[in-house]
């Protein structure tokens, strides 16, 4: 289980991986409803990792629109970069750390492959809160 979302199947977790060099960020696959190729730039759709989430995606192609959310709360985000899917066991996913108040509140887990950290997984509840505050969310 990551961030309270149920997207594990028989102990395996599927993650959508976005290569945002130098770091790969990931989303639980079950929290991504649609992945659509964006042919026309649409300024009304916010970047997933833009200023709202304090990270600027490297300018890469192709561009996609993802519908991200949980239950009846969803938002659309555009992403750039290579998109792939990875399947991981619970042992590959470490909870994100904190030291006192020092932490990484937008991310729930670290993906570790062969002992090496390889990706950070978005906390869906946290990014939904951010998007809701910005008025980007809509019903299912």
């Amino acid at each position, binding site marked *: 289980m990551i961030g309270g979302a149920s997207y594990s199947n028989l102990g395996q977790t599927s993650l959508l991986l976005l290569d945002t060099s130098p770091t790969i960020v990931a989303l639980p696959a079950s929290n991504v409803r649609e992945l659509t190729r964006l042919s026309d730039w649409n300024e009304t759709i916010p970047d997933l990792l833009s200023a709202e*989430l304090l990270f600027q995606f490297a300018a890469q192609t192709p561009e996609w629109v993802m519908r991200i959310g949980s239950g009846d709360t969803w938002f659309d985000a555009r992403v750039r970069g290579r998109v792939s899917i990875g399947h991981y066991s619970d042992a590959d996913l*470490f909870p994100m*750390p904190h*030291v*006192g108040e*020092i932490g990484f*509140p937008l991310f729930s887990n670290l993906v*570790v492959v062969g002992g090496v950290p390889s990706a950070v997984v978005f906390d869906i509840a946290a990014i939904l809160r951010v998007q809701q505050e910005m008025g980007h969310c809509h019903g299912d």
Partner: protein
Amino acid sequence: MKRSVIPIRLGSSWIVVHAGMICEFLSETLWLSVPGSTPVVPGVMTWRGRAIPVLDLPRALNLGSISPMDPAPRVAIVEHSMGTIAVPVDGAREVMTLSDEEVRPIHVSTMPYSSGEIDGPDAVLPVVEIDQILRDLTKMGSVA
């Protein structure tokens, strides 16, 4: 009263930190930057089967910064009352045991977070309080 310190190299600068906080040194270890994190705690690495934050000590001390693309030769694992944190460094020497008289008030050093200074083999070395850096980060709320 005696106290133990460890000399640590950050780039071309040597500092000393309290030995009691450091539980282990790792050799070159990969870490991952985390989008949106504070510059002083820019990422995470794994240690003993769990993830721990990475402290950019050079940045906290105005001595440059670390990068996941250029792993440091050593990583100090710091145990603190608030938790465990990884501190990439460029080098370290053996523990030094000092008397109170050997740790003087700050006179030469201008490094932030210094509580005193000692005579090193070639220069005066600041005694840096990692504890104070972590407490300041906590006060600031640290990350986005």
